[in-house]
């Protein structure tokens, strides 16, 4: 434990220099000095983000074999593959902070680490796939674009790659819904039903309201976050409502109303009890999602082991070339 006055002073001046760097909007790189709490906050946020990408493959993967056409199937497969890629960019960024992949995966499987609650809702119909692309990826983009300027270099760079790829996800989702809304009355009803179920969980994706978000202020001081949860949520609503009108389906919020004075849409109160229930593991699919991840990891163990055994054998061969024995 460093506890004499001199060391304490040194720590303080390092912390001051760190904050000055942040205030000049400079980036922090992996081997730079950083306060422990900054490192911990980033590990928590980046790993949570990575886990969300990985778990996010499950609700959509559910529909790959039942996509209504080859075009839709190809699009959905590419999207799910992208989510795997995004998870890997983010794990890679988290690992630069000194945490190992084993530990990260372990934290997901034991429930110690969280992932976005939205993926604990089921995908009941094909319209859900369109709605996820439109709303869930739309909300993710809203959150991720400001993260491209996050103070931690590897996270910001990962986000630039993610954002470039994400826009295809949202467009493919919206196109699915557009087709359904221009189709038969049953198809349009299916789109409306999906919006009814996904609207509120999508708004919850921005996290608790600013007054209940303990980390926001510190994260903003560190330039990890650039906008508060409520600011981003409001922007999302303002952007999305006209899109719903274009589709001809109704946002399930009787209090939703354009406010001439603020030029924003006012909207109803979010059911925060539901939000906290799902965060705490009591959503409709929490158990299924983790069980599927654990199974995939365990079923893949033999592949990792075999590939390591092969690599070690190749290495040995290089060191001791096999002698050909003759009888």
């Amino acid at each position, binding site marked *: 434990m460093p506890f004499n006055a001199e060391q304490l002073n040194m720590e303080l001046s390092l912390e001051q220099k760190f904050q000055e760097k942040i205030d000049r909007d400079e980036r922090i790189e992996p081997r730079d000095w950083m306060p422990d709490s900054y490192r911990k906050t980033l590990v928590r946020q980046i790993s949570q983000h990575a886990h969300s990408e990985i778990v996010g493959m499950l609700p959509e993967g559910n529909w790959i074999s039942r996509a209504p056409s080859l075009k839709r199937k190809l699009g959905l497969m590419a999207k799910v593959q992208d989510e795997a*890629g995004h998870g890997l960019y983010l794990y890679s960024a988290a690992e630069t902070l000194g945490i190992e992949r084993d530990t990260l*995966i372990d934290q997901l499987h034991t429930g110690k680490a969280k992932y976005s609650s939205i993926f604990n809702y089921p995908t009941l119909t094909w319209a859900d796939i369109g709605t996820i692309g439109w709303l869930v990826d739309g909300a993710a983009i809203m959150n991720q674009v400001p993260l491209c300027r996050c103070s931690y270099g590897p996270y910001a760079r990962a986000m630039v790659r993610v954002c470039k790829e994400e826009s295809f996800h949202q467009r493919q989702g919206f196109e699915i819904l557009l087709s359904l809304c221009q189709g038969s009355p049953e198809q349009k009803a299916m789109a409306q039903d999906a919006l009814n179920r996904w609207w509120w969980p999508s708004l919850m994706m921005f996290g608790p309201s600013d007054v209940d978000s303990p980390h926001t202020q510190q994260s903003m001081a560190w330039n990890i976050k650039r906008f508060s949860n409520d600011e981003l949520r409001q922007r999302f609503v303002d952007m999305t409502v006209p899109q719903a009108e274009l589709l001809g389906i109704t946002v399930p919020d009787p209090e939703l109303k354009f406010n001439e004075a603020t030029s924003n849409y006012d909207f109803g109160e979010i059911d925060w009890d539901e939000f906290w229930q799902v965060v705490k593991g009591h959503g409709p699919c929490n158990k299924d999602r983790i069980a599927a991840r654990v199974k995939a990891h365990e079923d893949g163990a033999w592949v990792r082991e075999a*590939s390591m055994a092969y690599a070690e054998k190749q290495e040995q061969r290089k060191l001791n070339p096999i002698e050909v024995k003759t009888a």
Partner: protein
Amino acid sequence: MKKYLPLYEIFIRSKNGLHHKHVGSLHASDPQMAIMNARDVYTRRQEGISIWVIESKDITASNPTDSDAFYAPAEDKVYRHPTFYKLPDEVKYM
């Protein structure tokens, strides 16, 4: 628990004429597998035509805490820059 596959750093040349550029890392059992994984993770949209991989533990890096002193020798050598030399305006193309 068994140790996870080793970590590799990935460098990609996006087209001939440009340098390989660091893009991130991934886990693989050997360099060949790292190259195959890098193709799937980092070039899904034709971002590269050449991939370099190296195990992360084999990289030696300069120490950022010494960087002030380490790069100081270049600080006071303005005469290494063209603008240090004053020429009359009539001299063209120099």
